[in-house]
């Protein structure tokens, strides 16, 4: 897979790389997708269908630049906060997940963590609350997170899953309260739908069911952020990847710092799955 030159150069040379806020929105995407979970060193479990290939095509068709890694090329370190090893050894989010505007993970997971199919440097997991800091600290380019794994944004047990995403400094995050069934082309159809509606409506409507099913098994969640309640709902109800895209939030704390903002959410609740 081709890499964008600036990333390749910086990574290969090991040079420090400092980002500054950009006046113009950089329509960039990073995707890690894992499908093969059959005893590759991160346990032995159910393999998954591929769901981001069509998504990538839709993103490219709408003018986004997409970097996508799958299977053993998708690493937990891509999501580790890079500014300090306390977030996980050898964090690379400044070059991958937090070096773009839209960050995507598809694979296994559960409340509080995402799981990769292959280990890298002995790691299989990312502990979301402890090791991920998207949108600030190292990298600080991400503005949106899309997570297509089970229960990551669980509301059960006092928002046990969603709480892990509070430390992310993003405009919007998309996930599931329960374990979702997702058809191969559905994330791409979600993206396509944002051409005529908001991200919130598209996510809740498209991901409520597996394509071709009407049983309402999935519980999709959208979580937005703003400086004030009005700003949060404004972002929540107006943002569209294709027609009304906000730049990254900016202004997040430096390495190791805290966070404070107003969060707002919508959930299409077809039941949870425990916490």
């Amino acid at each position, binding site marked *: *897979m081709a*890499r964008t030159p600036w990333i*390749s150069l910086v990574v*290969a040379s090991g040079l420090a790389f400092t980002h500054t806020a950009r006046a113009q929105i950089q329509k960039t995407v990073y995707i890690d997708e894992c499908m093969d979970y059959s005893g590759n060193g991160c*346990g032995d*479990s*159910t393999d*998954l269908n591929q769901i981001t290939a069509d998504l990538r095509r839709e993103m490219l068709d709408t003018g986004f630049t997409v970097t996508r*890694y799958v299977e*053993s*090329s998708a690493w937990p*370190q891509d999501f580790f906060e890079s500014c300090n090893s306390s977030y996980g*050894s050898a964090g*690379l989010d400044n070059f991958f997940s937090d070096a773009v505007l839209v960050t995507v993970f598809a694979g*296994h*997971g*559960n409340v*509080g963590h995402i*799981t990769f199919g292959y280990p890298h*440097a*002995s*790691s*299989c997991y990312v502990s979301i609350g402890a090791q991920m800091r998207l949108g600030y600290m190292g990298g600080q380019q991400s503005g949106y997170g899309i997570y*297509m*794994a*089970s*229960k990551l944004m669980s509301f059960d*047990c006092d*928002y046990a899953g969603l709480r892990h995403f*509070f*430390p992310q400094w993003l405009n919007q995050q998309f996930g599931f309260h*329960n*374990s979702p*069934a997702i058809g191969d082309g559905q994330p791409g*159809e979600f993206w396509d*739908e944002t051409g*005529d*509606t908001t991200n919130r*409506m598209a996510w809740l*409507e498209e991901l409520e069911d*597996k*394509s*071709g*099913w*009407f*049983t*309402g*098994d999935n519980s999709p969640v959208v979580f937005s952020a703003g400086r004030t309640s009005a700003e*949060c*709902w404004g972002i929540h*109800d107006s943002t569209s990847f294709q027609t009304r895209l906000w730049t990254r939030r900016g202004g997040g704390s430096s390495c190791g710092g805290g966070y404070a*903002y*107003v*969060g707002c*959410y919508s*959930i*299409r609740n077809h*039941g949870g*799955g*425990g916490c």
Partner: protein
Amino acid sequence: MLKPLARLLFAAGFALFTGCSSEAPDTPPEPPTESQASALQGQVALFRASWPVRSRADVRLRVRALSIAMMGVAPADADIDQALAPIDQQKNVSARLATSLGEITLRYKTRFDDLRIARPDVDNDRVTPGDVGEAAAQNTFVAAANSLQSQGILNLAAYDVQNADRSQTRSGEGAISPNNAALSNFVESYDFNALRVIRGIRFANAGLRVRVHRTGLISSIRFGGAEIASQWVNGVEVPTQDGYYSNVTQSDAVLGQRYAQDFPRVETYSTRTMYVMPTNLTTTIIEPRFVKAHAGYNDIGNVRSLGRRQFACYSYVRNEPALME
């Protein structure tokens, strides 16, 4: 997949410094189990089922009917027709259309005859006070279903309107910081989902979904799905074309045991008896199936990881591997 060179350099550089990542254990989940399985006996009907290929004109009529059921008015036929042009190339449709009461969004998935319309102004209304409550919302849902029947696109006898699944879309907000993260929680809409019903058994791949905003207005309607070849005889739906009847040979107990053997490491979320249309086929014979929804899990130490939801659908009439969806 080979890693790019830059990535390999990183791997080599960091391998010396990395350790195993772990985290505190989660509480082992106790998933809710929805049990809608029913003990089938005797003979069951098998039907020819297909995803219908609709003409642009046919879909236009449906858009018009759904819009009238949703808000009493519809976009101009010419506007609908123009928006539906991609259907001629078997492509999906996504559009915004004007009505006298505001804009609607239109989404049509050609592959699955899946039509959705919505009112963004109602869906986004966080200003108008009030909450009509679920009972009033249900009346609105039933009225919408009646409207669709009177407009000739839905047969109420074939939809489980009275026993529709009820759920809610909820919203909330709160100040978020490491020491303060209390979120409010309120109803955005009351959601009703009436699946197509075949001889008293739900059909997973067709239905009517109506979302009633807390203000009492309908914010969206979804309608469509697979169709079966049938006719009504004395109030009972009977198979036509190459549909037929067959004896039930597999009991719930037997299928439950097979499921446990086939999927020893899964979290099971629901157990239902449903007709299921395989989504990778365009037409086939469908039958009642014993349907388990689950996600596979893997425990490493105290960390449990889950795959995504799958449906294991066992035939009641044949001893064969589960259809996986």
